[in-house]
């Protein structure tokens, strides 16, 4: 039951939101988000205290029934999804014009529910269905803006993601046709066995292609900076913070079984290197805040792929830590971008400035998140990067480590560009200074506090991740 509730609550709220409006709508949505946070915490405690949980629908035995499976990794993932969604709901309560509010909230809850279901799903077809639901929710959120930019972004996002999901569907069909199972644990057994394991390698490669497209890896990332920025800033925190990271999470789950071949690890590693560098160079080139942050998503995802490519328990621990850190920091940075827009009147760095004297608290929060993204000790980003790079050096992949360090330096460059242009130099025109609701500051402070804690006390989280049963470089 504790596995099902974190999924049922947002989906029920989503359906309910369609019929509500005004204060009741925001009230119920905020209440539901905080209740979700409590449920996620409860699940995390249960998993930590009594080990992984499993739920078989309709009591069908293991490889045949549809299974939800929650271990430490998915429990923390759900915890972070509900934290980010609660923060974004608080922001949205004061943000969007009233007309479409119920649609916004309904789609946001739907997105949260499907993201949670993806973290819990334990078979490939279930995974595909929740991925589709996520796609539908994001498309809905994009077109609600109704402008030229929004519809165009939605069309591009749709076309590319659709190709990805179709490849995924075909791969899943082939895997089922070849081995007769879709359940993760059954696939793990088959991959380990000699006679039918090799079937999985080819179809697994197809699945990898689909996931890389959704993750935004090197040649397939152009859709990301072309579509994300059409969303309003708080939603960008939800979508940009979560979507690509969830695909990485899925890759971590399956990489141990379906993709456990040296060739794939090498390929993912080199793709990761190019993804990191091209993402951060794109960020260095652009001036629009949202575009800079979107390109940073690409570069950070490259870093995560590097961790996946290492395919050892140590590498996976580092990847998971970096994944959790990244979801929080990225969401916080997008929220800050929203507040910068409200204060300075524009997203273009050339047209804004003077934020430091006007909003000292916002500046401090930005500085913390930016330094964390760069990976300056003792922030949370530092530990994630340290764990991954140390493992890279252990495996003697010196070129990969060098690329990771260069990426860190370039990240520092583009973050200091935001700092110098947005916060330090005087505003070229004049500040707009729309009133910022106090609740927005409060939730952002809470997020920053969590990021700070992750940086100052990484021990408990790393311990928890090391206890995770990483099988041959993957979860499960």
């Amino acid at each position, binding site marked *: 039951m504790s596995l099902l509730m974190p999924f049922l609550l947002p989906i029920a709220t989503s359906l309910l939101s369609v019929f509500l409006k005004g204060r009741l709508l925001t009230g119920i949505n905020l209440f539901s988000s905080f209740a979700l946070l409590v449920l996620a915490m409860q699940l995390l405690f249960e998993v930590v205290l009594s080990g992984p949980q499993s739920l078989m629908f309709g009591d069908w035995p293991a490889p045949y029934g549809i299974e939800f499976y929650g271990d430490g990794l998915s429990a923390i993932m759900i915890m972070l999804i509900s934290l980010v969604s609660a923060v974004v709901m608080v922001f949205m309560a004061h943000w969007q*014009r009233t007309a479409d509010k119920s649609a916004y909230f309904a789609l946001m809850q739907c997105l949260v529910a499907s993201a949670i279901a993806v973290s819990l799903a334990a078979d490939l077809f279930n995974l595909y269905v929740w991925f589709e639901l996520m*796609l539908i929710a994001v498309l809905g959120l994009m077109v609600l803006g109704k402008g030229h930019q929004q519809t165009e972004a939605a069309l591009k996002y749709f076309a590319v993601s659709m190709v990805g999901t179709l490849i995924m569907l075909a791969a899943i069909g082939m895997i089922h046709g070849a081995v007769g199972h879709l359940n993760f644990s059954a696939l793990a057994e088959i991959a380990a066995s000699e006679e039918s394991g090799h079937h999985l390698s080819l179809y697994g490669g197809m699945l990898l292609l689909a996931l890389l497209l959704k993750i935004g890896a090197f040649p397939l990332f152009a859709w990301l900076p072309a579509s994300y920025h059409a969303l309003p800033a708080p939603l960008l925190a939800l979508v940009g913070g979560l979507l690509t990271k969830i695909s990485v999470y899925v890759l971590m789950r399956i990489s141990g079984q379906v993709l456990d071949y040296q060739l794939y690890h090498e390929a993912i590693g080199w793709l990761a290197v190019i993804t990191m560098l091209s993402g951060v160079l794109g960020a260095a080139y652009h001036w629009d805040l949202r575009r800079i942050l979107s390109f940073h998503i690409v570069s950070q995802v490259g870093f995560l792929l590097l961790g996946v490519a290492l395919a050892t328990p140590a590498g996976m621990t580092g990847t998971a830590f970096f994944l959790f850190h990244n979801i929080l920091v990225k969401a916080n940075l997008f929220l800050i971008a929203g507040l910068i827009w409200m204060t300075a009147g524009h997203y273009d760095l050339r047209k804004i400035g003077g934020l430091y004297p006007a909003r000292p608290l916002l500046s401090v929060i930005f500085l913390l998140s930016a330094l964390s993204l760069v990976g300056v000790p003792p922030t949370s980003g530092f530990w994630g990067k340290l764990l991954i790079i140390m493992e890279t050096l252990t495996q003697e992949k010196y070129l990969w480590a060098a690329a990771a360090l260069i990426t860190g330096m370039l990240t520092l460059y583009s973050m200091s560009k935001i700092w110098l242009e947005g916060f330090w130099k005087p505003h070229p025109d004049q500040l707009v200074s729309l009133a910022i609701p106090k609740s927005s500051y409060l939730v952002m402070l809470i997020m920053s506090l969590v990021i700070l804690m992750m940086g100052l006390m990484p021990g408990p989280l790393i311990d928890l991740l090391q206890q995770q049963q990483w099988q041959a470089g993957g979860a499960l």
Partner: protein
Amino acid sequence: MSLILIVVISICVSSGILLLLSREVFRMIMGLAVLGTAANLVVFTGGRPGSLVPAVIEQGSQALMTDAASPLPQALVLTAIVIGFALLCFALILAAAVVNQQDSSDVASYRENEPSASAKAQSDKPMVMEIES
């Protein structure tokens, strides 16, 4: 049976990709629809269509016989068809809206979201964000 399906799937994939690469937005979406059909057929083929051995697990045995027809892919395909159909309808309406707004059905002309970095921003106020006072 499988041979016919394989031929049909390869025709679907090749024509789907051809349509997908078109610059005309509706053709592109039709390409996605045809590719979707191909993906569905791939899943369907996994159920050993044409087999006359019934999908019954004999007493004492744990798995289906190796050449028996499997009904599960048909259930999977049904789900995939429903999702694909909904998405196709949405995509057609979306494409119509884009063509209306941009006065062009050439996807290469949709450049608003990917301007060069040095280009000036078109409007001073982004459109989406009207804040409640």
